[in-house]
């Protein structure tokens, strides 16, 4: 039994594949922790699955880590509640982006998108009053990108409140704030009511973000499946039009194909019409992705799914920049292009190339 199967069987309640748990004990505790962390899934899931299988108590290292994960999730939810309350009181026009609907996701920070710079400043002031300090990132980051950390939380896990000046990953422009705000909705996350983008925009942002980081975690995929199956009439045409308009059809196509492959392989069902994918295949980069998936990922998808640099970085940089050429300012276009390669550098730094 592979580590991948353990991860899926313990994370996805709807997984219908029978997993033989006989050799779980032979798996190294460290590699289990790494696998779950890499996929942004709390180790609590492994423990509960292990208990359901009637297996012996796992190594103490795993129990400790699961406890840490639980505390982190709780701290994260508390932070979400606090920030949402502060923004609502200060009447800040905001949405929380990349909020994973899969409840066992380990989210590193809270990502906030404000309508414009004035709303962002309102939000920053609200956080300042609540004893937050602010940091900025130097390398290629937008001048208005700022992260907030509560001074009082020194003993607690480090959860940053990340302010995005717009829907952009590093400096790759993937959408317009006004579009996301026109379709925002109220959603309940662990008993906290928060503003989030519409299902289509939410899926779009997660897809483009994962693609920009050249990897999709299992949590990303479970979030996407939940969004599509939970939406009342998911608007596929809108999703395609947004992807085509902003030159991100490659990211959305790859994400949808992975969702479809996963769903077929582990849930025994297909939840999207083939036509919804075929429209993307008119683009050359999507056809390249399709042939890569056929060659490399047929049947055996290893999580997190790593996107080859030539597709997610080189081809994507040319495709995306050519689509927004003439619409974005020249300087933004240069930053946008460089962002692809910075993402590649960060992947190299993390030793993932």
């Amino acid at each position, binding site marked *: 039994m592979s580590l991948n199967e353990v991860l899926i069987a313990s994370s996805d309640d709807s997984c219908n594949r029978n997993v033989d748990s006989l050799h779980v004990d032979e798996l190294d505790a460290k590699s289990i922790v790494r696998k779950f962390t890499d996929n942004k899934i709390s180790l609590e899931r492994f423990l509960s699955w292990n208990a359901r299988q009637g297996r012996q108590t796992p190594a103490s290292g795993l129990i400790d880590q699961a406890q840490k994960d639980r505390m982190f999730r709780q701290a994260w939810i508390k932070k979400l509640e606090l920030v949402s309350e502060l923004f609502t009181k200060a009447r800040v026009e905001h949405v929380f982006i990349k909020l994973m609907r899969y409840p066992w996701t380990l989210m590193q920070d809270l990502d906030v998108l404000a309508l*414009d*710079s*004035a709303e*962002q*400043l309102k939000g*920053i*002031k609200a956080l*300042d009053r609540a004893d937050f*300090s*602010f*940091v*900025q*990132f*130097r*390398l290629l980051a937008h*001048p*208005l990108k*700022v*992260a907030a950390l509560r001074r009082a939380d020194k003993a607690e896990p480090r959860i940053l409140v990340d302010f995005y*000046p717009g829907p952009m990953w590093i400096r790759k*422009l993937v959408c*317009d*704030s*006004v*579009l996301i705000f*026109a*379709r925002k909705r109220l959603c309940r996350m662990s008993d906290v009511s928060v503003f989030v983008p519409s299902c289509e925009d939410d899926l779009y942002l997660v897809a483009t973000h994962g693609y920009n980081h050249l990897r999709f975690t299992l949590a990303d995929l479970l979030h996407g499946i939940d969004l599509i199956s939970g939406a009342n009439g998911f*608007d596929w*045409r*809108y999703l395609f*039009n*947004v992807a*085509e*308009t*902003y030159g991100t059809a490659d990211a959305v196509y790859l994400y949808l194909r992975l969702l479809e492959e996963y769903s077929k392989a582990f849930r025994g069902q297909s939840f999207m019409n083939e036509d919804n994918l075929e429209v993307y295949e008119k683009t050359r980069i999507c056809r390249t992705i399709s042939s890569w998936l056929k060659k490399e990922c047929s049947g055996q998808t290893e999580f997190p799914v790593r996107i080859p640099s030539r597709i997610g970085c080189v081809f994507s940089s040319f495709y995306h920049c050519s689509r*927004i050429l*003439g*619409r*974005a*300012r020249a300087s*933004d276009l240069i930053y946008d292009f*460089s962002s692809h*390669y*910075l993402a590649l*550098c960060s992947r190299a*730094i993390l030793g993932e190339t």
Partner: protein
Amino acid sequence: MKCKIGRDKLVGLCLLLSSGSALGYLLYSTARLFGVYGILTVLSSFATVLSCGTLLVGLKLLVYESERPITLDEMEDKVGKYAGEPKTILSALPIFMCGIDGSGKTTQIRMIARRLKKGNWKLRYTWLRWVALTCYPFLVLCRLLGYTCWRTNERNGAKYPEHSFYRNRVVAAIWPYLFGLDTFASHLFKVWIPTKIGYMGLYDRCAIDILVDLIVETRDTALPEKLLGKLLLALVPRPSIVIVLDIDEETAYGRKSDIPSIEYLRQRRKIYISLARILGVNVIDGNGPAESVHQRIVEEILLHYPLWYCSG
């Protein structure tokens, strides 16, 4: 945070050393290749630029910390500085409305324009149908040969032109190409250039209407599959929104007084529907009050496009 800075500095040093040596080597190769191997020089220069970029990144990582604290005052200054930044990168999409005479195209285009005016679009309304420049001499000849004539509508005495090019095979073969040439020229100035310079074109009719006219006038139903037909359809820029308004011939006939006959509409309507099916164009039922047709257009088509949400 301290650990992160340490790692950044280490990475910066590595990047600096590796890109420095790569840069030296590439400069040497570029100098050797310059003027000898064109494509290799370009590739080598591109790699040199990339190395320079990496060098700068490495230098920046080495000198500065990747994160730096910022105060509220500094942030306020920055917000003031960047407040006037362009808000959207969303591009305008041309909207083409086509269909038989009396289907309500102009009314619907105006209703769409009213909503889009609330956004920051540079709107441009254009009527796109009859444009004849180079084909006028040919039309004169056809008039003399009796392939075109003016007829009088029995209903109201209004005059309308009738083209029966199909009566002569040579004329039927030449006419689409001549008319097509004029259409290309007019589309260049009325559609392509305005779209490229950022105008949101609202077009009353499009190349589909021209193709329908040509099919009727020459009775060549295979025209869409021919090279000329394909070239004409390629005049509709991609991406764009094309809407075919479909309406009963009787209703359309009742709406306008300059329509020759119901048969004239029936013939065209059939072709519109079959073309829309082939091209995968949206067909909207144009029967009923203008407001409900507009509602249908919005719900079935425009709501699926991001530009609609950025229009107030």
